């Protein structure tokens, strides 16, 4: 079943199975994290499971992903991530050294992100019922007063920026998993973005949307934002930062870098009047040095994402399907 690709099919699963079963006010937003009010405090709350193969890859491991992924989901609501839970599902027969290395990676990533792993769990499943190690993390963080960052808030005129080169994580994973040699090694971009987001909020609390373009890549994130806000998104094809090695790998495999996963990047929709200051603040931060403006939000073609090509065309960038099926007849 193609429902894990982060695209149209998993959206369908959520809409038609999960929401009817237990959907409530909080789930309706379908954001990366829920925004809750508890005892007067505004909390962001998020959970995610990690099933990556291989467990270790250039630039990181499943441990880094489990921490950074949940931290980033919290950060995308403007929250300051505070506490994580971490649950291990271990396949019988997995080397203890492997589990230890993953645990070390979780600890190091949490320290780097400034969060505390406050609770956890461990389960063992029979050999053959898992890929060594699955991790599930959940996290909570506090949303500062005056901050309201949601996909629905994108407005025509917003400037769209991406915090660095895209496609590295997906290609890095695929290269090692499938034994592909593209010449130059591509390393995962996995990183925690909480501190970058706080640096942006220090410029203005008026950020409209933040998103970490993980599964389904930039294309999926932009489509979700366009659909949620009812605005159009225009990308400048040439402005989208794609490292040469990623571009070459994608060209060879027939993939579009816009659909490839990232783990340490964010896309921001910033009101035009703050764009310059936010851009400068991002570039001054170690996790946002490669920030570029990639496009803008428009009133035209509501809900539709397009990429302006070098030759003046406007290619429609649709929600990804499970697989990129050919159209040429």
């Amino acid at each position, binding site marked *: 079943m193609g429902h894990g690709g982060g695209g*149209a099919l998993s959206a369908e699963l959520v809409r038609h199975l999960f929401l009817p079963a237990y959907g409530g006010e909080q789930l309706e937003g379908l954001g990366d994290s829920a925004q809750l009010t508890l005892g007067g405090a505004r909390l962001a709350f998020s959970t995610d499971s990690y099933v990556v193969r291989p467990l270790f890859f250039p630039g990181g491991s499943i441990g880094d992903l489990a921490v950074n992924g949940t931290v980033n989901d919290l950060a995308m609501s403007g929250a300051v991530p505070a506490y994580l839970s971490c649950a291990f599902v271990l396949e019988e027969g997995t080397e203890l050294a492997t589990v230890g290395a993953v645990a070390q990676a979780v600890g190091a990533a949490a320290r780097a992100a400034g969060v505390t792993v406050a609770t956890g769990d461990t389960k063992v499943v029979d050999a053959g019922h898992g890929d060594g190690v699955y991790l599930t993390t959940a996290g909570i963080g506090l949303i500062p007063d005056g901050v309201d960052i949601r996909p629905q808030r994108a407005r025509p005129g917003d400037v769209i920026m991406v915090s660095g080169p895209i496609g590295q994580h997906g290609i890095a994973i*695929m290269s090692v998993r*499938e*034994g*592909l*040699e*593209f*010449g130059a090694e591509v390393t995962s971009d996995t990183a925690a973005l909480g501190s970058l987001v706080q640096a942006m909020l220090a410029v203005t609390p008026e950020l409209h949307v933040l998103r970490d373009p993980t599964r389904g890549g930039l294309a999926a994130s932009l489509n979700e934002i366009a659909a949620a806000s009812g605005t159009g998104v225009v990308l400048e094809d040439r402005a989208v930062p794609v490292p040469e090695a990623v571009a070459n790998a994608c*060209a*060879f*495999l*027939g*993939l579009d870098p816009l659909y490839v996963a990232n783990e340490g990047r964010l896309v921001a929709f910033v009101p035009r009047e703050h764009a310059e200051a936010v851009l400068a603040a991002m570039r001054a931060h170690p996790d946002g040095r490669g920030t570029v403006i990639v496009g803008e939000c428009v009133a035209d*073609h509501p809900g*539709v994402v*397009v990429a302006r090509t070098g*030759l*003046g*065309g*406007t*290619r*429609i960038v*649709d929600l990804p*399907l499970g*697989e*990129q*099926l*050919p*159209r*040429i*007849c």
Partner: protein
Amino acid sequence: DPAAPPQGPVRRVLTVTGVVQGVGFRPFVHALASRLGLAGEVANTSAGVVIDVEGPDRTVAEFVRLLRSEAPPLAEIATVRCASAPPAGTRGFTIRPSQPGAGRTMVPPDAATCAACLAELADPTDRRHRHPFISCTHCGPRFTVTTALPYDRPATTMAGFPLCRECEREYRDPADRRFHAQPVACWACGPVLRLTGDGTSTEGSPALATARRMLAAGAIVAVKGVGGYHLVCAAAHREAVRELRRRKARGDKPFAVMAPDVATAARLGRVGPAEEALLTGRARPIVLLRRTDPGGALAPEVCPGSPDVGVLLPYTPVHRLLFGLPGDPPGPGVLVVTSANRSGEPLVTDDGEAFERLAGLADAWLWHDRPIAVPCDDSVVRARPDGEPMILRRSRGFAPARIELPLDLRPVLAVGGDLKNALCLAEGRSAWLSGHIGDLGELSTQRSFERAERHLRTLTGVEPQLLAADRHPGYASARWARRNAGERPVARVQHHHAHVAAAMAEHGLDGSAPVIGVAFDGTGYGEDGAVWGGEVLLADYAGHRRFAHLAYVPLPGGDTAVREPWRMALAHLRAAGLPWAEHLPCTAARPPELRRLLARQLERGLNCPPTSSMGRLFDAVSSLAGVCHDAGFEAQAAIELEAAAVRAVDAGGYAFALRPGPDGLLLDPAPVLRACAEDVRAGAGAPVVAARFHRAVAAVVLTVCREARRRTRTGTVALTGGVFTNALLDHWTAELLAGDGFTVLRHRAVPPGDGGLALGQALVAARTA
């Protein structure tokens, strides 16, 4: 008949539908009635042309007969409804003014300038001497200037050009060739032709003289035509053609050329009687001619490596004047004529847009102030060896000609495929296809699609209750259908089923018996989620069963494999268990590192959907034979493989293996690939390999069809899908099948490729939903 009783007068009210407005139908009726001495009147109404005619019984019957047999050239009568009324003793015959209302009649396609108008154009004593917009009831723009029905001057883009007194007189005179010809105009009242560029601007004849001079000197001029802007340059001028290629980012895709006359066309390519009829017909499409002249009148950059040259003759007065009239200074000669857009984008029709979007593409603009109501590309056709036409792109000159259906359909809109899109509206026994719209993956093309859909609905009056779309989950056309359906159902029609249904429909099959549908193309979404394209279906309108298909191979990289035929060659070799031997051209096409990557991609199945595409098998053999490893434009590898096969002296053929599979018979290409590889190793040469491969495909179609006939008693075969735009394959396959007693249905009215898809979708949807 002396025994017949004496005749009293009778009165009949005739309602004529079809293409009967804007084609000189009322003056024709007036003239006919007057000639026969009948009384009454004729009027354009929303229900059609209504004729109230009174006179002796037999004369009225004669009138009804001649109405059909003597109708004017652009008219196409669909139905004549006849009602009796009590005679009223009317005297004389009159033409009544048009009555407004919802349209049920049709506007004809645009027609090339007629001989009578051309004669006036060249006649110094005529008041329309050199008038760039000369036209009459029998010629000129129709579809592309009509904004609403009934067809009348205010419902065209000529609304802004009030007639001068002389034109008004012609327009009102039933005896005149310009009676109610809506685009009629002259120097005093018509649109103004201008040449703009380089800071200068000239009008009328000086504009044309300047344009001719510039073109002869190698300039690229944007010329506003009937359905959109063209970019034009002198075809013999190497630098100009090369510059046009560069500016348009066009790669090696062949350009079409406009020749002043048939004699010139015949020096560029082979012109037989069928080609001549197509070249000089009213539709004036681009006609693909087998090239005969490798140099001479055409710069080599016009159509490098192509076996054909696309030629069309002038179809507007402006084109005619660009070539020059007797006594004019020498002009630019044969012209390259290409739609003025960047590859993949829709045609430019708006003047403001033309100046904005074509800046940097054109050196000057030859344009005018008559708006274009709907974009319409040039059509592309070729003549089959037996003289039958094959339409490759059905657009200007054909759209929106009505297609007669074998069944009554409820109102339906079929949105077509995603590339080479054309949409179809159908109701009752009529279907109308839009012009060629293009690639719906582009936002601007999607807007053209919406504009074309609205325009065609206005002109046909069809209000669809049902929509039809392809089953491909990623098709923009299908998404559009879902978004715009409202409460109406959207039927999803399998791609190859639609191809087969299109062939059945245009041949008038009512679907009561199934046909053997051979649908060979590049890509279509299959029932099992695979990429189909080498399909033999047992089909009627209501359903289809897969009888046989090409064995699946991986399509490494999806659309990338389409652009890189070397991948298909290696994928096919691997699937056939053959080594990637160093001496094979497809292997040598890429360095070892890339081949290792491809091997890995295939092993791991990374972005490798399974495909049964026949188009991709042509690509594979093209690369294997050393003909084409990288396709710069659609179907380049297959086109060049066909060109090679045409050069071969007949040399036998390869053979597919047939074996039962889980979903019908499997056509296994492994023995074909093995034989190809052996021939290549033995140095047989690309033409021989190509010809043997074409023979193999034709032969396996015959074998499979025989097997289908044996099992089902079905003796009718439809050949459809883009692969059958290959004239050689089409000819050989049809010949083999006909020789074995099959009835063979080949496309004549719509393209075999996805340009005809919407017609089939409409039929299937209306039968199944």
